[in-house]
């Protein structure tokens, strides 16, 4: 297949790392839907912002797609039953973050056909802007790239904001993950429709889709359906470009992506909005398109289940709230020597030991590592090689910050060494020859300052 996309020649961000991609395990595998498990657990907090408030009680019967918890505020989204069944318990349950958080347990009705209730599907072209935003919030849509920021909030920028670019993030720079890759290959129309909906809602004229060059089939898939949208884009004076980007972690970080596509640095302490740029994940806009296609809220998501510790690596369409053990069972189980479960990508995702933990909206992948691939924890003293400074994509000084963190001088880290600019991408820890857990130290320091600062 000849590559039709043009390679983007602009200099990519400086720093970063290029770990082994390991995407070949699942990149070619079509997404498969897993069967409904016996139980789904819906945590009330799956997003940034206020937790949702339950509106069901124990014993209630719920159909797939029913509202079970309403948004807890503007920066919040409602929760829906991802399967037909009976509310079993509202209790504290293991959350992928590692904490116990309030969640609704639903015993799934084994004999149900899992058909949602009949509903009217709104035509997004006929909706006013507030109605559209409301529809996206009611659909429970959050950023599916990991951070899970409510999408309707992004659709409501402060009064007077002029947006120039809407950027779709299809980089998927984390090793192993192929979730966004498969969405772009299999649902390019949903991606473009979702982008169009957002562009129309925000009145943005230019949409840029940034995809790392290791996914040529995704770039081609998007470019092949792009002509279908030309007429409507032209009518509104809009333009959508699909752009291949350098393969380098963290290309998909918001600041790095904006730099690569617009050649602008987001000024320190400012938001992309201040540059007239908004970034959204490809999976999230696909789920916006899906709301207006099926009328159903966000009930399931694509998850890459991969790593050498899983018998059958797969791209799985998982109902929100399905437990790790059910997902593993669908993927042939874990191998004898599997030792570590990472929820998300291996560079930033936390590891998890409890197989009762449910999959939530922000989980992009599950990576199971066998004994031989678990990172060693043996640590040496810093030899000041400076490799962390070269790797840091935001140009702070991890070497000095690490020493300060070990001496518990958190205020100095913040005041003199720009700790807040650290986005915990993990590049410094990755390159450190002395194996110092730098990004972990910085995460802990930031948490300390949030609590005491």
């Amino acid at each position, binding site marked *: 297949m000849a590559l039709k996309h043009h390679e983007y020649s602009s200099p990519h961000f400086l720093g970063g790392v290029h770990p082994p991609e390991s995407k070949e395990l699942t990149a070619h595998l079509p997404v498969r839907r897993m069967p409904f498990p016996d139980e789904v657990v819906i945590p009330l907090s799956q997003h940034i912002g206020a937790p949702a408030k339950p509106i069901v009680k124990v014993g209630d019967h719920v159909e797939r797609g029913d509202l079970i918890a309403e948004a807890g505020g503007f920066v919040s989204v409602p929760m829906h039953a991802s399967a037909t069944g009976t509310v079993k318990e509202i209790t504290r349950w293991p959350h992928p973050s590692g904490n116990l958080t309030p969640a609704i347990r639903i015993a799934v009705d084994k004999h149900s056909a899992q058909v949602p209730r009949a509903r009217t599907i709104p035509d997004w072209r006929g909706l006013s802007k507030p109605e559209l935003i409301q529809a996206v919030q009611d659909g429970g849509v959050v950023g599916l790239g990991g951070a899970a920021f409510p999408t309707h909030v992004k659709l409501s920028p402060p009064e007077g904001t002029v947006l120039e670019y809407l950027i779709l993030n299809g980089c998927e720079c984390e090793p192993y993950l192929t979730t966004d890759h498969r969405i772009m290959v299999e649902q390019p129309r949903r991606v473009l429709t979702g982008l169009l909906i957002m562009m129309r809602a925000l009145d943005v004229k230019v949409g840029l889709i940034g995809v790392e060059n290791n996914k040529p089939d995704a770039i081609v898939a998007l470019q092949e359906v792009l002509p279908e949208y030309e007429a409507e884009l032209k009518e509104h004076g809009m333009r959508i470009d699909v752009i291949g980007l350098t393969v380098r972690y963290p290309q998909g970080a918001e600041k790095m992506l904006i730099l690569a596509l617009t050649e602008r640095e987001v000024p320190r302490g400012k938001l992309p909005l201040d540059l007239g740029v908004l970034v959204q994940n490809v999976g999230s806009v696909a789920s916006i398109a899906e709301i207006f296609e099926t009328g159903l809220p966000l009930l399931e998501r694509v998850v890459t289940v991969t790593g050498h510790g899983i018998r059958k690596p797969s791209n799985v369409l998982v109902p929100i709230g399905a437990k790790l053990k059910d997902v593993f069972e669908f993927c042939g189980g874990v191998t004898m020597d599997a030792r570590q479960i990472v929820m998300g990508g291996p560079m930033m*995702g936390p590891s998890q030991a409890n197989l009762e933990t449910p999959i939530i909206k922000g989980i992009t992948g599950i990576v199971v590592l066998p004994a031989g691939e678990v990172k060693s924890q043996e640590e040496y003293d810093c030899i000041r090689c400076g490799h962390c400074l070269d790797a840091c994509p935001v140009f702070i000084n991890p070497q000095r910050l690490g020493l300060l963190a070990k001496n518990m001088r958190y205020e100095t880290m913040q005041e003199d060494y720009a700790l807040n600019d650290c986005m915990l991408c993990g590049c410094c820890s990755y390159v450190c020859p002395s194996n110092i857990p730098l990004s972990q130290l910085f995460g802990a320091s930031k948490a300390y300052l949030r609590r005491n600062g």
Partner: protein
Amino acid sequence: MASSPIESRWIVTAPPHMAGPDSTPRIMWTVVLSLLPALLFGFARFGISSVMVVLAAILGCAAAERMFGSRKQSLLDGSCLITGILLGMTLPPGMPMWMAFVGGVFGIGAGKMIFGGLGNNIFNPALLGRAFLQAAFPVAITTFPKGGGSFFTLVGDTFALPLMRPNLGEGGIDVITEATPMGLMKFDQEPTAIWNLFLGSTSGSLGETSAILILLGGLYLAWRNYLNWRIPLAIFTTVFALGSLLWMIGIEAYPASPMFLLGTGGMVLGAMYMATDMVTSPVTNLGAYLFGIGIAIMVVVIRVWGGLSEGMMYAILFMNALVPFINRKTQPRVFGTKRGLKTKKPEATS
């Protein structure tokens, strides 16, 4: 709460869950490997005595590392072997073994272990050991035997007893000494052919004579990203520029061409291996340039106007002391800002 117990096999650690290929021992052992060609050349040229000197220096380093170290494994990380080899390479091949041993003990003991071991020292331990030897045994460290004889001929009083005056010259072991190119220049204003300097067929410290092998080893390390190439680049460029300037002005006491300045003394070994010691050089890239320029200025000043024929050692040690300051003043420019951060006050940690 979850009904099923958590299996104990699952390991929970903080992200990232992947690590790059480099490790501290791997870096150290690679440095050792890259030093071997120049070292073996020195052995071949100066014979069994030079082997003994290097062995004694390594043993001294290892003894101090083990005696003052808190971790048994620290002997295995290869760093004290580097110090031993580098110290040995800067010594004259005929030096008594016990002196080399003492130099190693001092270098590691006072140069590294009292600061807390690998990673925490301010000065390059090998150079500190050599500085100690220079102060303690000024004659022995400037007696350079002629190389190129049979491998098993002792070229100095290698097995002298500790604290005894080495039995050199008349009445003692028959040692043929030869002036080094640096000495010839400093005291007789007589230059040596550049080609000989480059290949190493001159007298001198046992591992410093072959510039080309040291350069190749350093280039290999730079290619592996195990040394910051900005430091030797800054040193060589600045020395060449200053040397050309002095050459054009013409200084009667020191008629050295810029190439002579570059090819002699510990210049190449110092620039490639001593100045680039990760622990004692700046972490920032701008700092690396400044550090190299500082070394170059110091070394030219010492060589041309100072009382010593060689200045690399003191130049590097002096700049080592400035590294915390350089680091603080060359903080990188944070993403999304125009200039680097300004720090308010000096740091207690380095």
